């Protein structure tokens, strides 16, 4: 169901469908407002497997590539 957030291209918008990871992982992201059902956009992706900067609710957060791979999304529009 859905594709990993890390595979979105820049400025593409998507809806988060699932957080695929351990309890801690889910909790940490949700606490920072990155949750199922939210609309997310990639603002920037650093090269060499570096982190991606995403925007949720108008707020930017930098997360590691591994985390971005654990966030499942469904492109919208």
């Amino acid at each position, binding site marked *: 169901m859905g594709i990993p957030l890390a595979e979105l291209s820049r400025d593409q918008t998507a809806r988060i469908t699932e957080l695929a990871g351990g309890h801690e992982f889910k909790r*940490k992201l949700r606490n920072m407002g990155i949750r199922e059902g939210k609309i997310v956009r990639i603002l920037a992706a650093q090269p060499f497997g570096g*982190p991606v900067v995403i925007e949720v609710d108008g*707020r930017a*957060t*930098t997360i590691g590539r591994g985390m971005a791979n654990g966030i499942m999304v469904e492109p919208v529009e």
Partner: protein
Amino acid sequence: MKKIVLMGNPNVGKSVVFSRLTGARVISSNYPGTTVDYTHGRMCLGDEPYEIIDAPGTYSRAPTNKAEEVACEMLARGDVILNVVDATNLERNLLLTLELLETKKPLLIALNLWDEAKTTGIRIDIQALSALLGVPVVPTVALSGEGIRELVDRIPDARPGTRFDLPGDEDKWRQIGSIIKAVQQVSHRHPTPGDRLAAASIRPVTGVPMAVGIILFLFWMVRLLGEGLITFIFNPLFELYRPLITELSNWLGPGILQELLIGRLYDGEIDFIQSMGLLTTGLYVPIAMVLPYITAFYLMLALLEDSGYLPRLSTLSDTLFHRIGMHGYGIVPLFLGLGCNVPGVLATRSLETRKQRFIAATLVCISVPCMAQTAMIFGVLGPYGVGYIAMVFITLMTVYLSAGLVLNRIMVGISPEICLEIPPYRMPSPGIIAKKTWMRVRGFLLEAIPYLFLGVLMVNVLYLAGFLDWLGSLFAPIISGLLGLPPDAATVLLAGFLRKDLAVGMLLPLGLTPAQLVIAVTVLTIYFPCVATFAVLFRELGIRDLACATAIMIGVSLAVGTLLRLILIGV
């Protein structure tokens, strides 16, 4: 006395609110993790005194790093909770609010950043929010002080609030969803040119050149400002002081008092750098050589911090920092450490694991010279040209990176990925910048001058007692044999434990060649932290890790020193 503890997510303005309430000054900056420890302050409400506690920020009551642990400890101690909430980010902030309501302690909410909420088109129904949560809610703009008066007036109305009884996070999020629906309206806003520039600063292709430019500009400004202050203000001041102190010196005449207060004369003249008297070198080094650079550096640092650029820099440098066992947030201890190693080491608390913290703290101590030391390096090596200064800093940078690479390899433990909120860019407030710079400069003066006096005194007394000659001959095999320095340099290393800036200054009377100076100042940076840093290192790492870190420092300093000697001087 009743305790009011400030709780909230990182970077919502708690420290500014705290300063407003207590008048006490604490550092606030525009990035998460500025506050890593708690601060007490006092406030009177009518006749009743209250103790106010500023705590680090946290996203929830389950801590994920040391700074958040402190926040949770403080929560347990508070009698009243003042929950500072980011009005531009209400939904996410409410999770902590709901968790705080579970403690059943009296609570009230400061809905801060109210100005930014208004300009970004967010409307919040205060009455409705207050009714739903069952606690007072006061909109505030901590930066300007708007709403703080009302906030203070409402403190007695703090109450345990609505009992939602939501055991799981899912339930809480659902509840938050319905609260948001009832109280918040967001009007859509089109991206501005500012938004586009902000986005460009975090994309690799545009962001990396911008970062290099910004960092070079900052350091160039520090040098320019520092030099300017020395040439146009502090040196002229000391030239006014010279006749006075010469008068005193003549009046005292040769003897122990002259030795202590004025120090050695060079061709019958006082040499402010080399004389080593309390009233000559003891004043000149901190005030005319170090203070100007400290002021310039902290001014630039404050601009960097308050603009919100640091988290962007963390993002851009994350990949590099992963190679050396940290993640991008490691740049924060590095930058703070360039001012003073003590806050540099403290900032490692925002890193998640022991491995990251150990590496970050060790690297700061081993290869990041504090601004006081840097200023003296400029002063001592400057006359021989920029090339020698560059040699020192390139060596230290290489040590930073290679020690990090090795430690990352050999240390067990994990370095989790970065997960960092990027705050919006904000225009630094001149008032806050000035206050913050002054706070840090004042801290330097209060710490440095007593230690420098102590250092100068110690050097004089030990010298008179013949201890230094003994020390010199004891360490001669290392100092002269390995490093190619005169045996007297042992004294300098001893003084470096008290103050590194003083120690660098003490190299001058030794009449070293520029190459020897490069070796000496580099070893002086690496071999051991100053006593103040050593104390926090002990507190942060514990005795075992401290022993490891110390062994690494001594080993690396000898290796690097010997290598430099072989390259610069030969066998």
